[in-house]
């Protein structure tokens, strides 16, 4: 169909966004100029993803789109139309933290906590892809998540420890 009128927009129009967030189907009216981060925080009240740099460099806004980490501050929400989004709020099951969340607490991989949701979600996507990564592979995959407190060592330790825990099948 070669007819531009078919998808002609209105001035300052709003569009309907249908996405699944943490397993729950959501239907929202949004403006196309809203980022996914804005919709998650302001539209759905999910405050886990943070705005750090706002330009896709620090990774504090990381969420999973179809299981893959992305920077939600530079993705228009309409680009996630129909997709499945996972935020940090979706990780705990039955009131119990995800092994990665527990490992970050146990290993002291959290200080101010601002980077932590993004850090954990990227780590989760890595463990879903490779349940047994080495320290180098962890550093490589987390290189888009900046932390200004921990110096990263404890974060890598936490991911290694969570991988160990998850292999044991205890969670």
């Amino acid at each position, binding site marked *: 169909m070669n007819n*531009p009128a078919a998808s002609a*927009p209105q001035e300052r129009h709003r569009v309907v966004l249908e996405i699944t967030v943490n397993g729950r189907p959501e239907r929202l009216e949004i403006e196309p*100029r809203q980022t996914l981060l804005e919709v998650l925080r302001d539209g759905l009240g999910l405050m886990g993803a943070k705005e750090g740099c706002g*330009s896709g460099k620090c990774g504090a806004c990381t969420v999973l789109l179809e299981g893959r980490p992305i920077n939600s501050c530079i993705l228009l929400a309409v680009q996630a139309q129909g997709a499945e989004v996972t935020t940090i709020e979706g990780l705990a099951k039955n009131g119990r933290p995800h092994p990665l969340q527990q490992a970050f607490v146990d290993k002291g991989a959290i200080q101010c906590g601002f980077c932590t949701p993004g850090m954990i979600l990227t780590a989760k996507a890595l463990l879903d892809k490779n349940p047994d990564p080495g320290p180098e592979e962890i550093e*490589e995959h987390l290189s*888009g998540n900046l932390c200004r407190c921990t110096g990263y060592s404890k974060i890598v330790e936490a991911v290694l420890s969570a991988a160990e825990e998850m292999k044991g099948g205890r969670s």
Partner: protein
Amino acid sequence: MRISGFEYHAPASLDEALGILSHLGPEARPLAGGTDLIPQMKHGLRPGCLVWLGNLAELKGLTWNRDEVRIGALTLHADLAGDRELQSRLPVLARAISLIGSWQIRNTATLGGNLCNASPAADSAGPLMALGSSVVLAGPGGEEEMPLGLFFQGPGETALRPGQLLKEVKVPLPHGPSAGCYLKLMRKKAVDLALLGVAVQASADESGSRLRSLSIGLGGLAPTPIRAGKAEAVLAGLSLDQARKALDQAVDLACGEISPIDDVRATASYRRTVARVYLGRGLNTVLDRLAGKEGEGLS
């Protein structure tokens, strides 16, 4: 950092996208991954309309033929970097793309976006140039194909005319023994733009001891990604041993073909110095690999 309002279209097919673009004219910007465009819009760029291309399934993925692989312009960097066949058959390209941005960026950004941005330092460009790639542009008047070297016209400038979209990239496949190498200079270990990038691709004849072809693609060293044609010419057809002896001369020639600039990330003189080192290292690595040696553990 809020984005100003714009008219938004989400066409379902290439034909529909082309129709919308030609109807709207220059006010419309195509949106692929958006990892460059959206930050620019946060800093004040105000296109009147965005045409999101994410629904154009026909522009995604790789098609392997006997002599070439065709890569859809909307293929994600992560899907290219992680593609086993690309890793084994065109390692120079898979490696370069694996070094683009962060994992998050590679999960959003597309090959077509990287090329259409026309950064002189685009990581995918040097290897694609070295591999002799061409691009297919689709527009209201049909499709046209051109060598990638003609697509780049200057920093941020391409041969795309209003209403045209980059549809796919065609990469010829090497036959017989071949080897490639991509070296990227960054200010830190990861997640940085290339200060410069050196891509070398070579293939040998059936005996494995004589160069059939050798090509050098350079990023960040000229107003567009370039081939170092003079350096390639002195090495073509030489035996691997002769090529090793001609290496200094080839590096000198390549250094005569570059025109790096001073910018916020590095000086021209630093780029020139490292280009010399990386050219030597890249050429040596590829000759080692063709000879069956691993090449100093470099990529």
